[in-house]
């Protein structure tokens, strides 16, 4: 019995070879840990003729200091992120966020790159073939209609990755490999607010690493979910704060689990002010105007929006107290 559609598996040994393959193959798909794509393939959500297994690229799992940055290879497993000394010392928020992803067995296989590039999710999409067939499919796959926003011409599936908001709050860059070499972009620019085309990577590009600048201040991540393990975030907020005396000198806030992409939140109105009820209201308003929670999860949008605002307050109280 074969649960997966037919495909040819390529197992390149080097990044160069992987990039070459990805450029040659039409509609290539990649697998590393497998916890996202293999589940989706099994549900018939894609039928790639070729699958490129990146898990053999040993040159992509290094964690190393380059200048004043920490570079983390895209194949680094989440389990390693949770227990790596260099990560824990410089970016504890990243290690803590990695520890909240799925369960320990997923983390042993799942990779940083896979977590960032994971598919968007929706109650109308993450279903069996039979279920979707009975529901005339949906805009994200095989269908012509979005069941979440009926008159929409784009897909509203939600991005639920935990690490992207943390990396965005930390001001990290994505290092992307392509035929000509490497290019570098802010992590937030990896994503596009379109559930069906949520990544900006070109077909011949592979996410190779993340580069983290030094953290000046304190960062943290908070995740709202039904159970304290396995579940995806119903909402997630990351904040990196630089506190000077009694004022917010610098602040970066990013959210996940709300829109089709992880998003930066404009918190410029809070800069130069102390963290108190007034600035908490400003943050709450900024979050509300940025997030568009829709009926893409079993928990209702209203709940997710309120949970986001409540958890953000708790998160900021914490980073402010320790900042």
């Amino acid at each position, binding site marked *: 019995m074969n649960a997966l559609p037919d495909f*040819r598996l390529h*197992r390149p040994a080097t990044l160069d070879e992987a990039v070459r393959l990805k450029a040659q193959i039409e509609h290539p798909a990649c*697998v590393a840990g*497998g*916890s996202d794509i293999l589940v989706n393939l099994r549900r018939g959500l894609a039928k790639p003729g070729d699958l490129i297994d990146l898990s053999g690229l040993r040159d992509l799992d290094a964690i190393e200091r380059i200048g004043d940055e920490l570079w983390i290879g895209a194949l680094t497993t989440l389990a390693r992120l949770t227990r790596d000394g260099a990560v824990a010392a410089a970016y504890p928020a990243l290690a803590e966020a990695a520890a909240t992803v799925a369960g*320990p067995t997923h983390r042993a*296989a799942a990779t940083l790159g896979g977590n960032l590039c994971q598919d968007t999710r929706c109650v109308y999409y*993450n279903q069996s073939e039979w279920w979707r067939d009975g529901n005339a499919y949906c805009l994200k796959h095989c269908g012509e209609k979005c069941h979440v926003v009926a008159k929409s011409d784009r897909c509203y599936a939600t991005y639920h990755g935990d690490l992207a908001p943390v990396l965005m709050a930390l001001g990290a860059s994505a290092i992307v490999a392509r035929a000509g070499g490497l290019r570098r972009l802010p992590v937030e620019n990896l994503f596009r607010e379109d559930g069906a085309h949520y990544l900006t990577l070109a077909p011949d590009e592979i996410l190779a690493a993340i580069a983290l600048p030094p953290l000046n201040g304190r960062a943290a991540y908070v995740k709202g979910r039904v159970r304290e393990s396995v579940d995806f975030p119903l909402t997630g907020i990351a904040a990196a704060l630089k506190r000077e005396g009694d004022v917010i000198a610098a602040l970066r806030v990013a959210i996940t689990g709300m829109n089709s992409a992880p998003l930066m939140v404009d918190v410029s109105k809070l800069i130069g002010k102390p963290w108190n009820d007034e600035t908490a209201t400003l943050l709450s308003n900024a979050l509300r105007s940025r997030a568009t929670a829709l009926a893409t999860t079993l928990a209702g949008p209203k709940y997710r929006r309120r949970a986001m605002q409540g958890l953000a307050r708790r998160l900021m109280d914490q980073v402010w107290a320790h900042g």
Partner: protein
Amino acid sequence: MKSILSVTVNGRRREDAIPDNLLLIDYLRDGLGLTGTKQGCDGGECGACTVLVDDEPRLACSTLALQVQGRRVETIEGLAGDGDLTPLQRAFQDKLGTECGFCTPGMILAAEALLRRNPHPGREEIKQALSGNLCRCAGHAQIVAAVETAAESRKNETAMEGAR
């Protein structure tokens, strides 16, 4: 499309020509008849298909068989190789850590991975390590107690060895 998989399963080296799209769980269950590895859900949510790959727990339902090329795979059948239950398996029996039994192989292998990495885990560490494995009989308390007992008996064995 087929490829050759060279792998060590429960201590025995094998070479098999298998389809590229074969999942590890189907290779083990249908190819090798090792049906102790269970398929609970279809989406990596329940942990019933947990096996060990180079001592790390791994979900066989979301791993391609060819991804364990050259590696060491252990299933529940490999634990009690000579017929005797391991102390961990005995503890599951003694502490009633098994009800319907469907989650048990995955639970035991996830616990085995923890005990190999950390022979003396605390209760929190045990709960953490098993947090991706679901028991639909809701027998989690007995399961945690079983792993604690196994860790305890390992500690006593180590102490006795030290005393000798």
